[in-house]
């Protein structure tokens, strides 16, 4: 089962204007750097991006904000980005904020074929406005829906040609659920190996969810908050 495409440009070439994308990563950790660069080269516009964060001014999704390719962000936290602020305040950019656990779970449920579920996050807050609430065992919950997306773009550490994936450290974050949730799932990896090279017990995402895979040309892996121990 060969899912390999030659490079990032090939992988994203059919993403149309106004597509709904999921983009993996937490902060700048585990983001699909090479695919984002390709989206910028392609110049696709009007994107809705489901991603926990929106990058920083000069890295990650922040780069796509600068080029005005993003119409709407669906995120849990969007700080650390001056251009983002400017577009938001000027009304150029729409933002929908969602509790982080709900965001992650809505991706997961798409992959699990579960259209709706109940979570306590946001009960009694403005997040609950217009949402169905329901009590279970004396506790109140909101009904939340699985996300839909046209393309999921994720970053893994190692992958094989059939699309089986292994993530590394906290770069795992949103990537496994998004990999399950895309109508088309595009994966970039640091290491691309032959089928049979990965231990089947260690695979985090089986290739069945992956439509395209390529080895990223280079990884900068920018660090957002380099924090060093005193000693």
């Amino acid at each position, binding site marked *: 089962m060969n899912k390999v495409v030659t490079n990032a440009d090939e992988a994203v070439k059919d993403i149309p204007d106004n597509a709904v994308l999921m983009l993996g990563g937490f*902060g700048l950790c585990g983001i699909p750097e090479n695919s984002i660069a390709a989206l910028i080269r392609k110049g696709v516009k009007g994107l809705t991006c489901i991603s926990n964060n929106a990058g920083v001014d000069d890295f990650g999704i922040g780069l796509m904000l600068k080029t005005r390719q993003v119409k709407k962000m669906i995120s849990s936290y969007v700080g650390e980005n001056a251009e983002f602020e400017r577009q938001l305040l000027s009304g150029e950019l729409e933002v929908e904020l969602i509790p982080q656990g709900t965001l992650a779970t809505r991706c997961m449920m798409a992959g699990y074929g579960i259209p709706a579920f109940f979570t306590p996050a946001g009960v*009694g807050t403005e997040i609950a406005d217009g949402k169905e609430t329901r009590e279970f065992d004396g506790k109140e919950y909101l009904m939340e829906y699985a996300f839909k997306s046209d393309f999921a773009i994720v970053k893994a550490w190692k992958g094989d040609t059939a699309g089986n994936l292994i993530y590394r450290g906290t770069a*795992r974050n949103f990537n496994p659920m998004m990999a399950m949730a895309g109508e088309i799932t595009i994966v970039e990896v640091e290491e691309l190996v032959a089928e049979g090279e990965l231990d089947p017990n260690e695979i985090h995402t089986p290739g069945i969810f992956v439509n395209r895979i390529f080895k990223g040309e280079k990884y900068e892996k920018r660090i957002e908050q380099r924090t060093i121990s005193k000693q």
Partner: protein
Amino acid sequence: MALTKEQIAQRIARELQSGYYVNLGIGIPTLVANYIPKGMDVVLQSENGLLGMGPFPTEEKVDADLINAGKQTITILPGTAFFDSAYSFGMIRSQRIDLTVLGAMEVSENGDIANWKIPGKLIKGMGGAMDLVASARNIIVTMMQTNPKGESKLLSNCSLPLTGKKCIQRVLTDLGFYIIHDGAFHLVEIAPGVTIDEIKAKTLGKLVVSADLKTIEV
């Protein structure tokens, strides 16, 4: 004397027990990690996907794939496990975290909390705060008792948009330690040198001074 941030962190650290899994929020809560008693078995969870967080790395050990929920570079300890964000909030919602410590802008006498949004100011988002406050059964909120203008942050009703409703039972400020029940802040511990009059002046919500009020050891 009001408690310093370090003294607040020390007081919270005394709530730790061996065997606890703990989630520490950004700000003062993070400092609690510095006061875990030597030899006590406490595992730190970071909601971006790990259990077993260690101290910040030395320059040589910095790894871009190892960050905490505040996006800071970190290290891991023996016994660490990584997992994805959905799984992480799964363990939060199913109440496996023994103690959650987080900051706040306002807390109300019925346990409401506001810590994510100030109308008119730029909104950055709630991150995992709404999930944490709605799920955790043992939360300590820690904050200064008043805002920079000197106004109480212990209120009858929160004025800011809520993060969670009726979910906070304990608040530690620089002036005192409060248990919230039956619609009131019950002052159970007071910072050394702080008077009840000062507490009263700086509490807008309903206040009850505990019959066996203790002084916080510093």
